[in-house]
């Protein structure tokens, strides 16, 4: 074995790039949980919907990709709004199990709706971006692009939450919703904005995933559970915790795949998750927002 293993380095870099997208996914889910206090079980299926939006606009209707892609952000953002208004808002004050069941129902609805319209086929937007070669490293340009966009999306959200008044109100509602309404904030509006934002994050993730993967109705299963696991590991609702947990998990998967197989690395990741839950049920990072 060489003194310096380029393949291992490649695996680590791919892990980081993959981590960026996972972190973006976790961010949207965490945002809703932290503010609205609801877990969107169907979050990955919103991402799937975004991928189909791009597919339909670009391939079926022939829109240019640069126009079709942003529509995923708008479209899934609107879906987030509708999900909150129609499904979450009416049962917000009922026990959490109702919300889990309702969004779980949405998951199956979206999967089957997609199957009905698009069939179970794997579809892709037929875009092949070059593979970059840096010395002896081969890095997929689409992954690099995804990573960059994910980081930009996260920075954007961070600035929105920390610099704007609506953003500050969102953070404040996450801390104490009763007080915020007594201070004149319409919490219902804050929930709607947050849900739309989380939807938009799912839409952005859809763009990044559709660049790398085929879309099919059950694609949510390939990253939904792991996104949820990352959120729990980072401390549900903790945006920063989820960010770091995403990179920990992505490295385990990436390096695990390098030494063994992808399947095995997912097993390792989930075993680690179970161990972490035994030792620190509140997540690696304390739960907060």
């Amino acid at each position, binding site marked *: 074995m060489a003194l310096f293993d380029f393949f291992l380095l490649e695996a680590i870099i791919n892990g980081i790039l993959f981590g960026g997208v996972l972190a973006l996914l976790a961010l949207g889910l965490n945002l809703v949980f932290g503010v609205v206090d609801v877990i969107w079980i169907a979050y990955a299926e919103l991402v799937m919907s975004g991928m189909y939006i791009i597919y339909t606009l670009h391939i079926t209707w022939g829109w240019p990709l640069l126009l079709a892609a942003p529509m995923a952000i708008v479209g899934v953002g609107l879906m987030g709004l509708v999900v909150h208004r129609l499904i979450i808002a009416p049962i917000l004050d009922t026990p959490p199990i109702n919300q889990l069941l309702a969004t779980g129902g949405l998951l199956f609805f979206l999967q089957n709706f997609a199957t009905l319209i698009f069939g179970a086929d794997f579809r892709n937007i037929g875009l092949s971006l070059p593979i970059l070669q840096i010395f002896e490293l081969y890095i997929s340009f689409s992954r690099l692009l995804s990573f960059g966009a994910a980081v930009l999306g996260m920075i954007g959200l961070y600035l929105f939450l920390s610099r704007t008044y609506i953003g500050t109100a969102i*953070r404040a509602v996450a801390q104490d919703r009763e007080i915020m309404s007594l201070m004149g904030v319409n919490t219902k509006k804050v929930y709607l904005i947050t849900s739309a934002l989380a939807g938009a994050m799912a839409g952005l993730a859809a763009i990044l995933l559709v660049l790398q993967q085929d879309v099919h109705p059950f694609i949510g299963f390939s990253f939904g559970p792991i996104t949820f696991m990352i959120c729990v590991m980072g401390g549900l609702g903790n945006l920063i915790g989820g960010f770091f947990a995403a990179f920990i998990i992505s490295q385990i998967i990436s390096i695990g795949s390098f030494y063994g197989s992808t399947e095995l690395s997912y097993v390792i990741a989930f075993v680690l998750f179970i161990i972490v839950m035994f030792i620190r049920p509140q997540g690696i990072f304390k739960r907060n927002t």
Partner: protein
Amino acid sequence: MLVVDSISKSFGGFLAVNRVSFEVQEGEILGLIGPNGSGKSTVFNLISGAHKVTGGSIRFEGRNITGLTPDKICHLGIARTFQIPRPFKKLSLLENVTLSAYFGDDALRSPEEARDRARKVLEIIGLPTDDRTEVTTLGAAGLKKLELARALSTQPRLLLADESLGGLDHQEMEQAADTLNHIRTELGITIVWVEHIMGVLMRVVDRVMVLDYGEKIAEGLPKEIANDPKVIEVYLGNQQALA
């Protein structure tokens, strides 16, 4: 200004407030006293909209506000503080107050205006006006002041102050009573002041109302209340509160 007509609130089978009626006149400080669990805080929660009344109605400046959401009631001009301070610990002191100024008053629409308002209020209350002071550095008295600052920054005409003096030493209590008096006389804000320590309260309030087990048992001038046999009975075994 505020007309509370026979409001009741039950939590399950427990009647926390039982057909309580009272009026608040513009410009006065009304003291609301009673032992722990007598329903004082619940009355505040009903007025501010945090809880829905089980019966009765509340009118503010001639308008029926029964059943309105807390944010609407806040915009109409009623603000409240909490017995146990509930600041946003992850926001700075100035941010805490700016936020309530920004969202609490419809007339303010620029962040700069809100920040100026917050600074002004902090100055009146006697808290630092810089943008670096963290909430976590404030002591008990500072946190109580912050509660007050947040409420005032929404530009209320009626302030519901919930046991502002719990956990303070004697000198801090006197200061806080002076602050409330100042808010009334200088800013022209009407105040309902909930308290279970009667001594300091009696000095600045115009009228007192006494609750016990969710019912109004007395109402009158501070002097009358202090000598009311029913009130003395309620406070019996808690002589310190009368001192």
